[in-house]
């Protein structure tokens, strides 16, 4: 178990290193000089002297390998460089905004689990009934509506028509907990919409599969009550694939919240990212993308460790 864990962590570290290298290399291989792009405006050729000065300041005039070395050693020290635009340290921006993005994802995931698992289990137990068909159809619809469409429609209905809550924004929890949660509601619902459908589908399929297993027959032969069989044997086994899929989708959400944050003006990672993409602020883009990719890899690692805890068979594989 210990060897397995250590190896799994080492593999993740290597992956992170590869990701960082790929991002760095790709940025530098692309034609076009960032300094030149940064200084050119409205089709006017920039002043060569200014370009040269900026290149020197950004270290772009140094050899590729030297820049790479500086980049890596910066990474090891937790230094992601500074924005080209306002020289604000990237790591500070990330540390300020990352928790807000994670809060959105966590809220969405909690909603998804609280709704998706019980409803999915019920749908499996009542296979073929109206309930099953209605919930399955709803899940199909939820999967089909793009996340930003749901967000926009939520704003239209709850903020514009019903006027129950503001269209978006953010207030720190410490400042006004109630307002914080109110503002969290709609973005969390938007994040949860796809997750709920995915968790529902997977739960339904996994419970159906679990129900047909021999150990369920054994549990019945032991004389266990239906609720105990359901919770302790059926759902306990079904939960493993559900968590796999949830983790996978939470990973894609690390990027997917960009759309939700944009719609609801939630000041997570997306605002600086979008600004940086438009302005071609390379250090900022690299820093944010790298941070999220590292989280993505870390999430996969954590989930692997969680399965090992949940499914004793994996520990020996």
């Amino acid at each position, binding site marked *: 178990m210990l060897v397995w864990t250590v190896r799994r962590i080492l593999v993740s570290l290597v*992956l992170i290193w*590869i*990701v960082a290298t*790929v991002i760095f290399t*790709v*940025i530098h291989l*692309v034609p076009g000089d960032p300094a030149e792009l940064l200084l050119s405006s409205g089709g006017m050729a920039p002043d060569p002297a200014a370009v040269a000065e900026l290149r020197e300041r950004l270290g772009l005039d140094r050899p590729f390998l030297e820049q790479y070395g500086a980049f890596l050693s910066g990474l090891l020290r937790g230094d992601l460089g500074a924005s080209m635009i306002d020289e604000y340290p990237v790591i500070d921006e990330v540390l300020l905004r990352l928790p807000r993005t994670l809060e959105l994802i966590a809220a969405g995931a909690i909603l998804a689990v609280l709704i998706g698992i019980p409803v999915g289990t019920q749908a499996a137990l009542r*296979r*073929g009934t109206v309930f099953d068909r209605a919930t399955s159809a709803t899940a*199909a*619809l939820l*999967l*089909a*509506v*793009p996340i*930003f*469409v749901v967000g*926009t*429609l939520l704003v*239209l209905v709850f903020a*514009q*028509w019903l006027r129950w809550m503001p269209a978006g924004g953010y207030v720190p929890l410490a400042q006004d907990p109630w307002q914080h949660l109110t503002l969290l509601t709609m973005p969390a619902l938007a994040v949860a919409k796809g997750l709920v459908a995915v968790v529902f589908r997977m739960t339904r399929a996994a419970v159906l599969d679990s129900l047909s*297993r*021999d*150990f369920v*027959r*054994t*549990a*019945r*032969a*032991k*004389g*266990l*009550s239906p609720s*105990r069989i359901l919770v*302790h044997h059926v759902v*306990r*086994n079904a939960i*493993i694939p559900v968590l796999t899929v949830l983790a996978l989708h939470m990973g*894609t*959400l*690390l*990027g*997917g919240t*960009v*759309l939700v944050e944009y719609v609801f003006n939630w000041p997570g990672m997306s605002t600086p990212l*979008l600004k*940086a*993409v*438009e302005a071609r602020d*390379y250090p900022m*883009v690299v820093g944010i*993308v790298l941070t*999220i*990719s590292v989280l*993505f*890899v870390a999430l996969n690692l954590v989930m692997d460790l969680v399965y090992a805890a949940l499914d*004793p*068979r994996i520990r*020996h594989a």
Partner: protein
Amino acid sequence: MRRLAIPGALVAAIVLVALAAPILGLPDPVQQDIAQRLSGPTAGSPLGRDEFGRDVLSRLIWGARASLTVAFASAAIACALGTLLGLLGGWFRGLGELLALRSMDIVLCFPPILLALLVVTLLGPGSGTLILVLAILFLPGFVRVTYAEVLSARSHDYVEAVRALGAGPLRILIVTVLPNVAGPILVQLSLAVAAAVVLESGLSFLGLGVVPPEPSWGLMIRGARATMAQAPLLLLWPCAVLTFTILAMNLLCDALRDWVDPRTASAVRLRAIDRVLPGLLPPARADAVLQVDRLTVEIDTPAGVIRPVDDVSFAVRAGETVAIVGESGSGKSLTAASVMGLLPPAARIAQGAALLDGTDLLRLDEAALRRLRGGAMAMVFQDPMSSLNPVHRTGDQVAEAILAHRPMPRAAARREAVGLFRRVGIADPERRANAFPHEMSGGMRQRVMIAMAIANNPRLLIADEPTTALDVTVQAQILDLLADLRRETGMALVFITHNLGVVAEIADRVVVMYAGQVVEQGETEAVFARPLHPYTRALLAAVPEGDEKPAGIPGVVPPPHALPPGCRFAPRCPHAAPACEAAAPSLESYDGRLVRCVRVAAWLRETASA
């Protein structure tokens, strides 16, 4: 195939409308007319005009063109390139495999939208960038699907055969592998197109996809947000069209997947169990722990009602072992399941009774049955690996059985479980109780199952092929264990098997079943010494003995929906006469035994005179 029709038609309709955009006589989608901005439906524009006075219907249809072009182009590129990489990686292995697969792992390290944003930063927004980004995103899916299929195809006999014939790798790939991977790739392609529509609209919504003023659904929603107070319909139209398109594509994906891989398609419809009250019952034998009387089980199938268990009667006394013997499909396991109340949902009891100490199990409700299951009656199943829950410790699973019937502190139940482990002959029971099923050998797992079954001192133990999945030496140990336990506890043991060798070793009496019916029943020694039914004789002859080659039984058990009119064994019987096919024989008492054969008297005379 039929499930494909509706979503297929919907997607085809969307694609056709998009393709036909230039010939539909629509107004120019980028022609602005500020004077008419946000105007409602008019004769010229049935859906009204947007914030720049552009025609909404025209923009919707031209927007479909933009979305679908990006979606199909990116999916096609990813499909072609990914399939090629997967084929090469899977076929040549080695370095190619490493490069093709590992590079895909790197793509998968990025959340999709982020990777897209990264590429947009580098190349600037636009349809070309979108196509490139999406193609990169979908590449891993195609590579992996193709790679997996190639690997499995490689090991198939026919591919080996073609290779042995000296065909070049390219030819083999094209002729033998591609047709096999076509299905999964088609599914992957449909998934990619659907995902591309979602991502394209999302990026355009952020202003990083399609460049204005070119129409796109994402851009339309982006634009309409500003005016949602005055003109909410402007927002709803593109939302509805986009959602509808993705829904149709998703449905097509699901249908395609079911079509390509029928295993995932929906299974048979279930129906609730309904029990018919049995008729008047004969008085129970006083000393029988279990008495099964005229048990008949029916299952509704598309081909009509079948009776996999038909009029089965037998009894087991305390301390006695009765073996039920028969080939697969003889109804022996369903008989046991009926007694335990564990019939599959499609099966129902049509008639009969099963008395456990005088209580008719077939008339009990589920709650009462539950109190008996694992308590007064217990069962051991064939495959101990799948019958144990893989995620719980074996000791806990036994303790759970104890706690289900006798409330006590967890620790006490756990201690009792360890005691049971010792009793069923598991060495080092304290440590073994902490083991998971996969950490045990097959024989030890079956000992755990037995410990679980005897946890509450059952009066009746049903063992359904408990040794079939085990090695021969382990089989003997398990049989000894069951025999010892029966002797010590005085429980009644019903032993279900297809192996007559096992019967001779363990059973006092034997019930031979064929095609749902009892064909012979009697003391084990007598039956083995002089089998009366031709099927019993055939079974005995089929047991390997010394160097003699066992005589197989020609033919197979008839399926329950195609039973012969007379004796069910007649088509396979070496002694069949016209009388056998005329009428179904009944179970007759003969020489202290029960036999279902019209020719038994005649046969006995023949053998006696011979």
